[in-house]
């Protein structure tokens, strides 16, 4: 059946809560309201208020309490109302959760999922548009995923819940209702740590994830038609651990790599990927690894500013053509 991205998340939560009674939900307005974006809609009715918990506005507590329950074998799925507010739970995630197993000498685990609605392009301005993933992809002990499709939204969330580690799950707000797919019913998972080629091609590799997969594919299709260029589009899906093999394989195959993300350029994960490629596929490169990303500023509110700041199909197109011509 055709489903939206947000519905896929909702279905995954329903199914996982049914499957495992240790799964529970915690966050602001997740119960009666069903979440600011309706991701947790219907869960209260189905599972009761002991397993679907509205919290006060206390992000550090939400994550910290999730950790405490997780270390005792529960499988909490906690929600940041917006990914932007993850800054308020930062210490609990990067220090408490990420080091937990390590500092217990491998004899404890923290199977916690932090859901974080991220991304721009919805007139959210500085504090409702952030893409904070690169703050977490540098933290060993965490896993970080960022689904770009309806299928992955469901499959990766299930994997995250079943994973034995703290997983930050970035769901892109702009995709919530803007993309629809035929979503297979029933149980399936998408493995964490495995990227996916969305379009094969031999001329140039485009590596992306999350909110920029759509515009990237659009651009790839346009250059295919207009310029006869075969762009290979790799969707990372998991940002930590990175699927290095897939990244290096496509780079070696085409010799030209463009990295696209909605996060800002400097310090975005694109730098790390470019560095990996430049180091490990150096001999295979026929041109510089280039990046298309948000400008190095905050996501501003006013449409002309927001449009300038965020990457779009046109900027990707231009970059593909520039690199192809290199």
């Amino acid at each position: 059946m055709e489903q939206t991205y947000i519905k896929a998340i909702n279905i995954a939560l329903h199914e996982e809560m049914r499957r495992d009674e240790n799964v529970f939900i915690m966050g602001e307005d997740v119960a009666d309201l069903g979440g600011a974006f309706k991701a947790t809609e219907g869960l209260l009715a189905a599972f009761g208020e002991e397993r679907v918990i509205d919290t006060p506005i206390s992000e550090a507590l939400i994550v910290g309490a999730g950790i405490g329950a997780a270390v005792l074998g529960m499988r909490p799925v906690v929600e940041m109302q917006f990914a932007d507010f993850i800054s308020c739970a930062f210490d609990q995630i990067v220090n408490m959760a990420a080091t937990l197993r390590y500092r217990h000498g491998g004899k404890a685990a923290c199977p916690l999922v932090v859901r974080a609605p991220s991304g721009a392009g919805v007139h959210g301005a500085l504090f409702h548009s952030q893409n904070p993933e690169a703050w977490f992809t540098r933290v060993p002990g965490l896993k970080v995923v960022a689904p770009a499709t309806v299928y992955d939204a469901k499959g990766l969330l299930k994997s995250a819940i079943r994973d034995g580690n703290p997983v930050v799950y970035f769901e892109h707000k702009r995709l919530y209702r803007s993309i629809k797919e035929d979503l297979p019913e029933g149980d399936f998972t998408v493995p964490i740590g495995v990227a996916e080629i969305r379009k094969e091609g031999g001329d140039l590799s485009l590596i992306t994830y999350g909110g920029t997969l759509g515009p990237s594919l659009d651009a790839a299709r346009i250059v295919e038609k207009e310029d006869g260029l075969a762009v290979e589009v790799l969707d990372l899906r998991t940002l930590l651990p990175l699927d290095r093999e897939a990244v290096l394989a496509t780079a070696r195959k085409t010799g030209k790599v463009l990295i696209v993300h909605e996060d800002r350029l400097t310090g975005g994960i694109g730098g790390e990927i470019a560095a990996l490629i430049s180091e490990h596929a150096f001999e295979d490169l026929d041109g510089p690894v280039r990046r298309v990303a948000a400008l190095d500023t905050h996501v501003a509110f006013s449409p002309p500013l927001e449009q300038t700041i965020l990457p779009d199909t046109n900027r990707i197109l231009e970059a593909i053509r520039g690199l192809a011509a290199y």
Partner: protein
Amino acid sequence: MPETIGARGEAEPSPRIEYELQLYYWMKLIRAFEERVSRLHRQNKILGGVYSGAGQEAIVTGICAPLKDGDFVAPLHRDMGVFIMRGVEPSRLMAQLMGKETGLSRGKDSFLHGGDMEHFVFGSTSMLGSSLPVAVGAALKFKMKRDPNIAVAFFGEGASSRGDVHEAMNFAGVHKLPVLFVCENNRYAYSTPLEKQMAIEDVADRAEAYGFKGHVCSGNDLLAVLEVTERVVDKVRAGEGPALIECKTYRYRGHSEHDAALYRDKEELIEWESRDPIPRFEFYLEKKGHDIKRIREQIDEKTNQVVQQAVDYAEQSPLPDPKEALEDLYASPAASVTPSSNSNSNHGAR
């Protein structure tokens, strides 16, 4: 309507009658502004989130009226009225909401996070409660520099659950800083009712745990808010340390204009609407012998005009130039002195 009613939030407390009419004007202006904003949002003329403060006008009016020039105020996301009370021109506010170049943040953010440091109104981030440490720092500056000013930090009962609020109040208590914490307790944080937020009834009870006094008042009763504020602000200004005023109130509209607020009881809303601060104050004015019908008409005309001018101004204002996206990030070392650093210039004007 007396001539002395101006756009500025600073009140001339004497003669009392004029002052009270001014207060009425402000509440009405804020309500009119809020309502217009809700309408503009429905008309898609405002794109960002709109968080109406309708129903809570007595709080911003009653808290801000006794403040002085140079007092530092950090408003809550619902406190459009604070800007008006502190003298920010409604037209610039409207421009801010529409993302125009002439708005407070020059289009960088919508209403919520634009401050106006010329009027000592601090633009908070979205992270609820995070502005309380900042207000405490402003109060620390006032104390260090022997400024006759105070800092005022507004927060919702929802925000009171944030760690930053705790850290801020504790430190303010230790250093007896001139800061007033104002809790607008409207019984909901988005959809979450009070009893899911805290196991106590009054946020004001927390103050004691930080070594200062907490006060509770009806936030829908302008005279009550004003009375406690005047008393408390004098003490805070006199160096007696921080204070907390909790104003009990109710949010009329949804959490934001997107929210139908179906989680709330209709009865509850009706009950609270019957406590509307505006008719309540009109009743008082009437009792005092004013011809309230005439005054209301006059004032409605004036506020409609002010709001309409604001809309016109905002609509005619240009959007920012795309290249400004990369401006305003950094101060150059020389230019870094804020307008506020010569904050003492207007002190003691009253």
